C-alpha cells in the first residue's frame, strides 16, 4: 500500500485542533495532580489514623494498577453512581488523580527531607503546626520537588493519549478520525507522534526555565 504523505495537509487542521485539546487536557490534569498531590501528601503525613489508612490503601491501588484500567473505572463508574460526566472531564479527573498519587509520594519525601529544624524554628517563633506547615515547610518542599514533578507532568502528557480510548477528542482520536477518512494510519500516527514530541520539547524547555528560576532564588 505504501506511504503517501500528501494526505496530511487536508486534515492538518483537525489534527492540530486535537493537539490543542491535548495541551488543554494536560494542563488541566497537571494542575489537578499538583494540588491534589499536595493534599494527598499532607493527609498521608499528618491526618489522624482513621483517615490516613483508607487513603494509603487508595494510593496503593492507584500505583499498582494501570492508568487505562483506572480511566475505565472512573468513566464508567461515575455513570453507575449516577454522575454522567462528559468523557473529557472523566479523562482529566482520571489523569489528575493518578498523577496526584505519584506526586504525593514525591512531596511526602520532600517534606520529610526538609530539615526538622525548620519546623522547630517556626514553632518557637509562635506559629501553629498548620501555619508552620503552610508558610515554612511546604514551600521549601515544593521547591525541591519541582524537577521530579516536572518529569511526571511530561509523563502525563504522554499518558493523555489514553483518554482517546474513552472517546475524548484529543490528538490521538483526531488522528484516528483522519485515518478513518483516508485509510492512512502510518502517516497520521506519525504526525501525531511528531506533535506529541514537539509539545514534549516545549514542556521540557519550560521545566528547565522554572528550575533555573528556582535555583536563583535559593
Amino acid at each position, binding site marked *: 500500500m505504501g506511504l503517501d504523505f500528501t494526505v496530511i495537509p487536508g486534515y492538518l487542521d483537525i489534527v492540530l485542533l486535537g493537539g490543542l485539546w491535548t495541551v488543554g487536557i494536560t494542563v488541566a490534569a497537571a494542575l489537578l495532580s499538583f494540588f491534589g498531590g499536595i493534599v494527598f501528601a499532607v493527609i498521608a503525613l499528618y491526618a489522624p489514623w482513621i483517615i490516613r489508612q483508607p487513603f494509603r490503601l487508595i494510593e496503593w491501588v492507584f500505583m499498582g494498577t494501570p492508568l487505562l484500567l483506572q480511566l475505565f473505572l472512573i468513566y464508567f463508574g461515575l455513570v453507575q453512581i449516577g454522575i454522567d460526566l462528559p468523557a473529557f472531564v472523566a479523562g482529566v479527573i482520571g489523569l489528575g488523580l493518578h498523577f496526584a498519587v505519584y506526586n504525593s509520594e514525591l512531596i511526602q519525601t520532600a517534606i520529610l527531607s526538609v530539615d526538622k529544624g525548620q519546623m522547630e524554628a517556626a514553632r518557637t517563633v509562635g506559629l501553629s503546626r498548620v501555619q508552620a506547615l503552610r508558610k515554612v515547610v511546604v514551600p521549601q518542599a515544593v521547591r525541591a520537588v519541582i524537577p521530579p514533578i516536572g518529569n511526571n507532568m511530561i509523563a502525563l502528557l*504522554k499518558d*493523555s493519549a489514553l483518554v482517546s480510548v474513552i472517546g475524548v477528542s484529543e490528538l490521538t482520536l483526531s488522528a484516528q478520525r483522519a485515518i478513518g477518512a483516508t485509510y492512512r494510519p502510518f502517516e497520521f*500516527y506519525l504526525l501525531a507522534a511528531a506533535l506529541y514530541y514537539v509539545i514534549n520539547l516545549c514542556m521540557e524547555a519550560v521545566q528547565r526555565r522554572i528550575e533555573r528560576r528556582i535555583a536563583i532564588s535559593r
Partner: protein
Amino acid sequence: MDVDLMLRVYPFFLEAAWVTIQLSVLTALLGLACGSLGAAARLSRFALARFLGAAYVSVFRGTPALIQLFILYFGGPQVGIQLDAFEAGVIGLGVNVGAYMTETIRGAIISIEKGQREAARTLGLSRWQAMRNVILPQAARMMVRPLGVNLNMLIKSTALVAAISVIELTYTAQRYIGSTYKPFEMFLLAGVLYMIIIYATGRGVAWLDRKVRIV
C-alpha cells in the same frame, strides 16, 4: 457489590492475567535486549552510534507508547510489516521500555567510579576486558533495583494492548464492564490480579537484588 457476578466471571480474568504475564515476560526480555544495545551505543566511542542511541532514547521516551503501538500495528502493513496484535504488542512495548532501560543500564555503568576503570587499565587490561571483568559485574549488581522499577512500569503498560484488542486483563475488564454495567466489580477483579502480579514481581526483584549485593 455483586459478588455472585464476580465469582462467575473470575475464571476469564485468570486466563487474561496469564496473557498479561506472558506479555510482561516477553516484553521485559525484548526490553532488556534493546536496553543493552542502546546503552552500548550511547557509551560507544563512535559518534554515530552515540547519536543513534540518544535519538532512540529521545524519540521512544518522548512520544506516547500507545502511538508507537498504533504505528506498528495499524501502520506496519503499509511498510510491509504484518503482525498480529500480540506480536505487535510485545515488539512495540519492548522497544518502548528498552528506551527507558537504556538509560537505567547506562546510568549504572557510569556510576561505577572512575578509579575502577583506571585500576583495570593500568594493569594492562584492554577497554573491553576492563568492561567485562571489572565494570559490568559491578554495574549489573547496581542495576537490579532500577530495572525493577522499569519492570513495574512495563507490567502496567501492557494494559495498552487492550486498545489493539489483545485479550489481556484490561481488555477483559472493559469487555465485562460493557456487558454487565458493573465497572467497580470488574475493576476490582482486574485490579487485584494486576496488584498480585506486581507485588510478586517486586518481591522477586528485591530477592535478586539482595542476592547479588557485593559482600
